[in-house]
């Protein structure tokens, strides 16, 4: 194995990360990341890790507590990676590494070593180590055994996220893959709600489940950390078996995904669906909207987010709704879900509207149209695609929501949907203009959004979901419904803000033309 060269590539990865901090956005991101990292490490290592360890040891249930903490962290790191794309960016592709004197095995090692050394996984490692240190400090575990368990657990976590990300990436490229993804998503969102109550009622199910979980990576790691009587060979065997199985699976999926998918020679066929839809925007805008529409529909990232938006928000709405006064308060939660649903489906592109154009971006300024028309067309496309999600969500609500029909609710949900769509897309205009990023159109995974776009997207989802949750708890659904008219002026304000952003954005687009060119063509 060419270890020196692989290590040099890892070093290059960090140099590239460091190089990103030379931009203004990069410096802000670095500052915030560093600040949050330090703060979270401090909090979690003391409260989450050391604190959990102290509690665990004092209660005499060190292993059970370690299982719960490690299981939670393991799942959260996996979900955060797969859903938000953190920690699974492909720093170097296999094709890019072929220019170096590396064998196939070396290239595999280089790719995954640079992958697992992404800052996100180092952060996860910090959390795991917090628990291991805590358990050792309070006398419930062997430190070096704990460190070894933590390292193996981290590898398993990274590999699991990679397997899923690669699988989804591959599925989004194959025929019928989108349908399979949709079924997988629905399953992932619905199964816990369906299975957990049944399992809770079934005799002996809990014991059987716990017995099964003993063969999971977090439980094996917990036993190594906190159970002095654990069969070390057995627990290490469990972790090693998981790592080996995931490696084999990952290699198989990567091999399948790497198969050339170049289209065979085919005559030109005119598919004017996009042009027909775009014609509703008028003859001047139609070609621009049709172009944008093709980008939205063909982007794996957008497709994945589009199909995931409704199931994900339905899951957050219905699984977290509490009961009060005999009926679930789905409606108030749904207000938040409706506000974000249209934006969530398109945000990966609408928050970075020109980031996917690569050198095509310069063509906009060669076209015989005012630059403002480009921005308008691009944003209107995002609004149009997002509005189909709002409409679909409303239809699904009317058909399936376990709430008696009330016209006020429908009006409120619709206003919330329209208002949210306008508000978030107005903000997306500003992230596209002020914090753009050159992005690879072909990838499905990896978080390639700028800091501002991430704040807007993640903050938007959390704000809407938890904001309405707080509203439900503090005010109550009956009061919310009695003020049924309030979302209407709010939506009108959001529309006005959107129109204003489009107008002002057009002049900013022109004044920042050269800066945008430099950034989007990779010269900044």
């Amino acid at each position, binding site marked *: 194995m060419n270890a020196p060269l692989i290590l040099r590539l890892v070093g290059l990865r960090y140099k590239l990360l460091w190089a990103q901090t030379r931009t203004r956005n990069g410096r802000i991101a670095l500052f915030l990341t560093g600040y949050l990292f330090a703060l979270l490490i401090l909090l979690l290592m003391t409260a989450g890790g050391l604190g959990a360890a102290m509690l665990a040891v004092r209660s005499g249930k060190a292993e059970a507590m370690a299982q719960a903490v490690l299981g939670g962290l393991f799942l959260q790191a996996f979900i955060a990676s797969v859903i938000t794309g953190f920690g699974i960016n492909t720093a170097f592709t296999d094709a890019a590494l072929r220019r170096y004197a590396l064998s196939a095995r070396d290239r595999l090692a280089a790719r995954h070593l640079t992958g697992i050394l992404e800052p996100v996984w180092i952060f996860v490692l910090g959390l795991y180590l917090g628990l291991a240190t805590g358990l050792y400090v309070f006398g419930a575990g062997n430190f070096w055994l704990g460190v070894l368990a933590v390292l193996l657990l981290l590898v398993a976590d990274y590999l699991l996220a990679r397997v899923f990300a690669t699988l989804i990436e591959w599925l989004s490229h194959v025929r019928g893959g989108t349908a399979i993804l949709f079924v997988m998503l629905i399953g992932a969102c619905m199964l816990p709600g369906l299975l957990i109550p049944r399992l809770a009622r079934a005799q002996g199910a809990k014991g059987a489940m716990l017995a099964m979980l003993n063969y999971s990576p977090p439980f094996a790691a917990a036993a190594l950390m906190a159970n002095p009587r654990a069969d070390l060979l057995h627990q290490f065997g469990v972790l090693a078996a998981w790592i080996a199985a995931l490696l084999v699976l990952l290699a198989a999926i990567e091999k399948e995904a790497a198969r050339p998918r*170049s*289209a*065979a*020679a*085919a*005559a*030109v*066929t*005119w598919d004017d669906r996009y042009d027909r839809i775009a014609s509703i925007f008028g003859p001047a805008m*139609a*070609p*621009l909207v*049709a*172009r944008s529409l*093709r*980008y939205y529909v*063909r*982007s794996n990232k957008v497709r994945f987010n589009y199909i995931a938006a409704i199931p994900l928000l339905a899951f957050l709405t219905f699984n977290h709704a509490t009961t009060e006064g005999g009926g679930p308060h789905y409606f108030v939660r749904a207000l938040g879900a409706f506000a974000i649903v249209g934006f969530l489906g398109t945000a990966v592109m609408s928050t970075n509207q020109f980031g*996917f*154009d*690569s*050198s*095509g*971006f*310069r*063509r906009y*300024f*060669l*076209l*015989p*149209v*005012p*630059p403002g028309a480009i921005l308008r067309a691009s944003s209107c496309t995002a609004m149009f695609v997002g509005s189909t999600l709002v409409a679909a969500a409303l239809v699904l609500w009317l058909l399936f929501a376990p709430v008696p029909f009330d016209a006020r609710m429908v009006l409120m949900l619709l206003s919330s949907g329209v208002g949210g769509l306008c508000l978030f897309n107005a903000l997306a205009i500003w992230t596209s203009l002020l914090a753009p990023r050159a992005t690879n*159109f*072909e990838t499905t995974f990896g978080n390639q959004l700028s800091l501002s776009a991430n704040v807007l997207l993640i903050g938007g989802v959390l704000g809407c979901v938890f904001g309405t949750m707080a509203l439900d708890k503090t005010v109550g659904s009956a009061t919310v419904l009695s003020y049924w008219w309030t979302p209407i002026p709010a939506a009108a304000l959001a529309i006005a803000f959107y129109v204003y952003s489009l107008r002002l954005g057009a002049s900013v687009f*022109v004044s920042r*033309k*050269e800066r945008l*060119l430099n950034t989007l*063509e990779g010269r900044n």
Partner: protein
Amino acid sequence: MTPAIQVANLTKKYGETVAVENLSLTVPSGTLFGFLGPNGSGKSTTIGCLTGLLDPNAGEIRILGEPFHDGSVALKRRMGVMPESLGLFDALYAHEFLFFQARMFGLDEETARRRVTELLDAMELGGTGKKRLSEFSAGMRKRVAFAAAVIHAPELLFLDEPFESIDPAGVASIKQWLHKIASQGRTVFLTTHVLETVERLCQQVAIITRPGKLVWQGDITALDRDGTITHDGREFRTLEELFLHLTGERYAQLDWL
């Protein structure tokens, strides 16, 4: 006859760096005009300013007799541009991209489709109906970019390195089309580093050096006619000799190579 391009005292800076300095240039209509210079001399920056991609810091530009700035929408409709980076939308198929370009430049749907089909056949890209532009080879991408520049039959065509990566048959076809365009009184403004091509193709040439300073402009048909170009009392038998003399490019010896 109104010149196709008139540039007076054009200056473009990137921060403190001067990319083009006080460039004045006149390009007669109906010519194949070669715009030459070493790497980094400001050729692409000049084209950027002449096509509305970049905003000059100073100077005046007149295109087809009218003052030009980045908001000159009507003038842009009369121009075709093939930028150095090609400016393709990679998620589109070639025919979709060309149709988009044709529609943006005001062609009706029927004419646009007819020209797209004809251009794809002429460029030997007819079998790429299910291939996105991102999957095209460098040469194929260049052909598409050229097709996009000419699809609306512009009066003034800017081509930045049009022959790089294209196979000899493709280059021959493009040269013939360029001759045809010029013979119809339209103008081609091109940059390339292949001086033999310029020698055989262009009638007029301008040579600039870093940072975007014009050092020579003249008729090179004398090379065909007399076998030499005279400059500063010296005779040059090829454009390359003249170029190297003017730009001061030297052959560096590398002992280890």
